[in-house]
């Protein structure tokens, strides 16, 4: 009889461990899916911006001798940003950084174009241009929002992957930590919100 006690304890431990790893695996899958859907939304918004930029370029081209340099910079940044495609199954920190850098370059070029366009009264009176400007600004805000949601999802996922003993199991099941968007450098210590 005494012989069976250690075996029973062992079985119990194995059983509990199995339950635990099953739970961990399930929760990882769930969180992984949440990250993927958040990523899909990020991509949709960036794609929407790219499409709007095409329209914007076409409209601006029509304006009498618009600064070529600025326009070319946007077209080129748009082209190189669209080259970096990312798979939802492969959101490594390095890849995400690349993606963010190329989109950031496009943002900068686009920002310059918006500033330069202020000097063209013809554009400022163009309803189509104004509409595109609004759509792009709205899309930038959607991008910012979708990035925050994505980061939240990744954070929840990464915490599960990294904490002991999940980290042992996560490696076994093939779950790796994922990359997050970094806050763009800018006003950190700025004035306070006032109601």
């Amino acid at each position: 009889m005494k012989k069976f006690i250690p075996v029973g304890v062992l079985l119990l431990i194995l059983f509990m461990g199995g339950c635990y790893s099953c739970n961990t695996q399930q929760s990882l899958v769930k969180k992984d899916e949440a990250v993927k859907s958040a990523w899909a939304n990020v991509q949709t918004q960036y794609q929407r911006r790219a499409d709007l930029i095409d329209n914007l370029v076409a409209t601006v081209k029509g304006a009498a001798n618009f600064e070529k340099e600025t326009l070319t910079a946007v077209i080129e940044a748009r082209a190189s940003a669209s080259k970096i495609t990312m798979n939802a199954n492969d959101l490594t920190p390095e890849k995400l950084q690349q993606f963010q850098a190329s989109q950031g370059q496009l943002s900068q070029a686009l920002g310059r174009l918006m500033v330069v366009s202020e000097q063209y009264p013809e554009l400022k009176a163009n309803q189509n241009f104004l509409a595109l400007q609004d759509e792009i600004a709205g899309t930038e805000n959607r991008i910012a929002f979708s990035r925050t949601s994505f980061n939240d999802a990744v954070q929840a996922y990464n915490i599960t992957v990294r904490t002991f003993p999940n980290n042992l199991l996560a490696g076994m099941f093939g779950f790796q930590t994922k990359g997050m968007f970094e806050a763009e450098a800018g006003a950190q210590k700025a004035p306070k919100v006032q109601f």
Partner: protein
Amino acid sequence: MTTLAADSDFPNPPNPPRLVNDFSSILSDAEMQLLEDSVEAIEKRTSNQITIVIIKSTGPYDIADYATQLGNQWGVGVKGRENGILLLVAIEDRKMTIATGRGLEGALTDAMCGRIIRNEIKPAFKQGLYLDGLLQAVSALDLATRGEYKGIDRKHAEKPRGFSIGLILFILLIIFILSKGNNNRGGGITPFLGGMLMGGGFGGGSNNDSDNGGFGGFGGGSFGGGGASGSW
């Protein structure tokens, strides 16, 4: 870009719930009530929750980002329909934004919101006519959700206060005279006129329609970042 949100950066949802929230007191009580009545009337008719929030400054936040987060925190709109609209004004920043709930992004495109800001709000705000700008915006937003706002003829946008107090008093006087003078002819015309008053006065904002019910509260709607901003 998105600033990390601290809870203290956002005002608590109003209790009791209101659609018009002027934290920086640029509107008088009567003006607030007028606005409240007009947005509540729209809410009753369409269930769209047009919420107006006036603060001093969004500080480090981009105003569009701030409005999106505030709309989500308060849950403006009805869950499932996601039909909230948040019109945020930052007085000291001289900026305004319209944030659209996810369900309204189709009818109220960013471009449409931009047009409403440029054509309805900005010209009035430039003259310091805050109430006028907001009323015109509310009316334009309502029309736009029905696909009827064109944003070309500014004067076309009807003002909810078009039904003046004077007119209502005049109708009341007629009812009074008729009911005094024609007792023997029965209630033929009086209920008819009374009904007209009730029906026509709905948009007036000065009768008691808003008392039976009022605004029931936000419904957990969500915002995805759509809308447009401007400055004056």
